[in-house]
């Protein structure tokens, strides 16, 4: 009996020993693999770590499993310390069959089964000994961490170059997106991570019809969260195109980009969206950019209409569809979103106008060509005139530079000074310069929005809105200058009324009035000017003497009346553009288009003329270079008078009025102007002083 018992005992002891041996098996692996710094040389020649952090492993989701439950090939390892290397690849499908099957259908799985070494397997994404459930915040595949896991390959420069990924910037773009912001900044677990759009085990290439991000599927993928949008989009014309398989139809990623999805509420998106629409609708974009909206948008304005502000965005339908915001019945409401008080006339504005289209937009066509012809003729005429003058002057200078110098010296050194412009005239001219230049600087970038300098200039000004404000202020100043000048003229005219009478009868006659109007001092053009012009031309060609001009030369008269013309034309059209809703109450909408063409081209004419011909007359003429200061100082020397305005000088001399023009004490002229400036500064100071006193007293008392 004892024999059998002892055998049983022995067997039990053996089994116990074997059992402890089995339990020790896990510890056996760790005897070596638990040592930090344990490495081996991989097939590629690299040193790889084969250290397993036991603490980490037991904290992982597989922590309850023994080593050999995954490393099946090592189950028979008899002795400690040796096993075959390399160890066989762990087959996760032993337990996770379903996921493995799905994975095999995906692109990673398919490439892997073909032996591709770059593609991730289970361990590449989930980890090996540190696998945590996806809901755990530390898991490599938790949605807040997933992008960094994907980035290991998809943001790896070498791999990118080697495998030629379709979207090498996908991850950096994603980080800029509103989705990434929601995830990483706002900590929103409902925001999408890589898996929400691409799937996780069955990721397909986007060109595969099975992929959730294939063109025909992507709106459904987006629609999982953006359900309302999916509904609206499906009913829209774009959605219908896509549903019909039409390749022209845009899908979500065409307008929103696949990864760098930025919030459409922002201003950056607005400008970008125009370009996206224009990608297909090129002509409309071009015509849109010819309108104020387009130009301002191109220059960085934010509060202007982009394509979607009028056409809608997800639910875009044809114009004749009653639900379209640009259907005739809905237009006023659409315009009113920004333009309070818009009416039917205002909505008649031609939004995508082409002034080259004679059939559809004849009013724009003819206006444009009229203005162009005007511009071209003026520039040709004066260009020629200036050129001839320049050539003549240079020829004179080169022929006899000594006498040229002498006359210039004489002009500058002559001590007898006469007044040509009164202080008010000088001041008005200064303000004219300031306002005109401001108008040009703030307005021309809009006209030439496509030039590099426009964007830079707009940025310096502080943006389109500020330029707008400055432009209108300057316009008011210029109009004010105009009115002050006119009032001044009237003021000076009124005392003269008594003198307008027929020398014989002493009565007021029309002839006397005409004589007064066309008197030599007047700026109104006269036959004399035609004569002067003709003689001037003859002199250009060396066929005559340089004419002796009266007080106002023909080019000065032209300059003068050009301003009148400009104020009326540019000011009038500008006023229409400033208050479009008011003017379209009684004018049709296309008047706004016409006003824009007129304003823009006339302004170009004015600015161009001033900056070229006027500047030639007063700056670049050899005799005047670098600047004719008469309009600022108001003074001309006698020598200059004789040479430049000989006839005026003679007339004054003969009539004995010359002495009246003699310049007096310079300070007297400056007096009203300098005083104004001084007292302005003084007044500001006093107000500030009062403010400071009050604030200081209050604070000292309170403390």
């Amino acid at each position, binding site marked *: 009996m004892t024999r059998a018992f002892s055998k049983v005992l022995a067997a039990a002891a053996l089994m116990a020993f074997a059992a402890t041996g089995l339990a020790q098996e896990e510890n056996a692996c760790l005897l070596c693999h638990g040592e930090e710094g344990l490495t081996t040389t991989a097939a590629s020649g690299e040193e790889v770590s084969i250290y397993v952090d036991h603490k980490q492993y037991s904290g992982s989701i597989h922590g309850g499993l023994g080593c050999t439950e995954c490393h099946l090939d090592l189950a028979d390892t008899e002795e400690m310390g040796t096993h075959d290397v390399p160890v066989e690849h762990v087959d996760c499908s032993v337990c996770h069959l379903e996921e493995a099957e799905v994975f095999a259908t995906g692109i990673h799985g398919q490439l892997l089964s073909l032996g591709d070494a770059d593609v991730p397997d289970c361990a590449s994404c989930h980890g090996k000994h540190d696998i945590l459930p996806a809901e755990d*915040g530390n898991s490599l595949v938790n949605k*807040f961490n997933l992008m960094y896991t994907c980035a290991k390959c998809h943001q790896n420069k070498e791999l990118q170059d080697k495998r030629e990924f379709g979207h090498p910037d996908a991850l950096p773009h994603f980080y800029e997106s509103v989705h990434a912001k929601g995830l990483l900044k*706002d*900590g*929103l*677990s*409902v925001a999408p991570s890589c898996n929400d759009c691409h799937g996780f085990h069955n990721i397909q290439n986007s060109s595969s019809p099975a992929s959730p991000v294939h063109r025909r599927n992507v709106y459904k993928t987006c629609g999982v*969260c*953006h*359900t*309302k*949008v*999916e*509904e*609206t989009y499906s009913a829209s014309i774009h959605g219908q195109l896509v549903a019909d398989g039409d390749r022209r139809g845009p899908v979500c990623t065409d307008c929103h980009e696949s990864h760098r999805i930025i919030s459409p509420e922002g201003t950056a998106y607005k400008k970008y969206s125009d370009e996206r629409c224009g990608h297909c609708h090129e002509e409309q974009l071009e015509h849109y950019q010819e309108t104020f909206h387009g130009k301002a948008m191109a220059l960085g304005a934010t509060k202007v209409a982009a394509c979607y502000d009028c056409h809608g965005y997800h639910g875009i339908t044809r114009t004749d569809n009653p639900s379209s915001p640009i259907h005739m019945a809905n237009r006023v409401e659409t315009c009113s979103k920004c333009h309070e008080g818009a009416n039917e006339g205002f909505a008649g504005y031609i939004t995508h106008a082409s002034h080259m289209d004679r059939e559809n937009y004849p009013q724009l066509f003819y206006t444009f060509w009229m203005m162009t012809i005007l511009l071209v003729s003026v520039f040709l005429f004066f260009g020629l005139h200036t050129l001839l003058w320049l050539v003549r002057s240079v020829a004179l200078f080169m022929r006899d530079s000594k006498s040229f110098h002498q006359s210039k010296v004489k002009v500058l050194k002559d001590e007898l000074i006469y007044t040509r412009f009164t202080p008010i005239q000088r001041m008005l001219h200064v303000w004219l310069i300031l306002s005109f230049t401001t108008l040009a600087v703030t307005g021309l970038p809009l006209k030439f929005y496509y030039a590099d300098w426009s964007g830079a200039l707009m940025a310096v000004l502080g943006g389109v809105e500020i330029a707008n404000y400055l432009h209108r202020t300057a316009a008011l100043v210029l109009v004010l200058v105009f009115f002050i000048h006119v009032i001044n003229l009237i003021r000076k005219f009124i005392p003269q009324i008594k003198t307008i009478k027929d020398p014989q009868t002493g009565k007021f006659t029309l002839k006397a009035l005409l004589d007064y109007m066309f008197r030599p001092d007047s700026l109104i053009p006269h036959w004399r000017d035609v004569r002067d012009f003709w003689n001037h031309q003859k002199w250009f060609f060396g066929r005559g003497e340089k004419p002796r001009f009266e007080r106002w030369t023909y080019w000065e008269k032209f300059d003068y009346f050009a301003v009148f013309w400009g104020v009326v034309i540019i000011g009038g059209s500008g006023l229409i553009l400033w208050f479009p809703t008011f003017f379209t109450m009684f004018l049709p909408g296309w008047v706004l288009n016409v006003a824009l063409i007129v304003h823009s081209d006339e302004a170009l004419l004015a600015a161009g003329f001033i900056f070229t011909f006027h500047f030639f007359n007063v700056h670049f003429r050899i005799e005047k270079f670098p600047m004719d200061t008469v309009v600022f100082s108001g003074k001309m020397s006698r020598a200059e008078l004789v040479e430049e305005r000989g006839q005026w000088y003679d007339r004054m001399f003969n009539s004995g009025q010359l002495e009246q023009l003699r310049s007096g004490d310079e300070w007297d002229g400056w007096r009203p102007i300098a005083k104004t400036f001084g007292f302005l500064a003084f007044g500001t100071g006093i107000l500030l002083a009062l403010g400071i006193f009050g604030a200081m007293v209050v604070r*000292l008392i309170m*403390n």
Partner: protein
Amino acid sequence: MPITRYIKTLSPVAVLLLILLLPGRSLAQGDDICFECHNDPEMTGSAGDTIYVDSERYTESIHAQAGLECVSCHLDLEGFEDWPHAERLERVDCSMCHDGVFDMWDSGVHGQPAREKGDLDAAGCADCHGKHYILPVEDLGSRVYPTNQPETCLACHGDPKLAGKHEGMGSSDIARSFIESVHGQALKKSGLTVSATCTSCHGAHKVLKLNEMLPEIPETCGKCHAPIYQDYVHGVHGEAFQSGNLDVPICTDCHGEHNIRSAEDPGSDVSPSHVSQNCAGCHEDISITTKYGLPLGRLDSYNNTYHGIALNLGDVRVANCASCHGYHNIRPSADPESMTHPARLAETCGTCHPNAGENFAEGKIHVQGNPEDNIGAWLVKRVYVIFIAGLIGGFVAYIVVDLLAHRRRRRAEQKNSNDPEES
């Protein structure tokens, strides 16, 4: 022929059989009788309320799709023959089939508590789900689909008359402000169903009262804003809240409840332009600061600094409370992980002032002009005030004397010129 006779006799039977056996896309047989009257759009009860039931819409509803008849719910009309039936039918008892959900509703604020108070306005099943056209929740047309819930709930909660009648409902403005909130806009404007809708926070059937909801609020918000919830519970406010302190702010105290806006929205209570006022709500409250021994005058001292002045004058880029103290995981300065711990201050300042060294963070930040805060500044200020007062006083005195002297001399001159004989 006998076959034709069979066919003739049997065909109506066959037809009848076919109708009976056809899948139930059509009305259940018994419903025909009901719809004979109730299919009339103009039909109303004595009170003028409509009792029209659109049979097409009804067929699409989930109950009709499930094969239910009118009398499956209107039990008191089963087997009824004595048409027309009584004006008022018995109330339909949904708990017959939906008993679990019914119990949940009953334990919530719309259920038994309302009944006990005699409140007849409280929402019942039909008030939210509808009566005859109920669709599954996942259906876009359902009254309880996430993007449609605001309208459904606001039918009562947005009605000022009802809100005035029932104290517990809160102001109707508050409920209606949800539409303008970031959650409401995401739902209505962007059509994002993942956004929080009424039931996400209040629960669908077991709607709780505010004081019952309170302890759960951070966790509720944390359902979607998970990492933020984690930050919060590790911060000083979160830890205190979890130990039962109700004075500390929870999510809704800073962000608002229904009118939550994005932190970048200038109208939000946690936007740069408002956050300091928000924090001041507790940190400038004398009862709270004394109760917890918090330092006083935080907002005041902040407004004295350049940051405070600039912020109040419209520059939102400058540092506000949250820039330095953090927002969700605020910790006391003594905590080494706190953004305002002395060892980490230079780093915190460095987020806006690059390369800020250790010197940059030295010295008290919240100064109020006391000598303890910065004795140098206090002294210099006093010296300047005295000096300025003295100097300007001296100027004024000199000027007054000068002017008086001028006047005196001018008078004397005039007197002299009037009497030229006097020398």
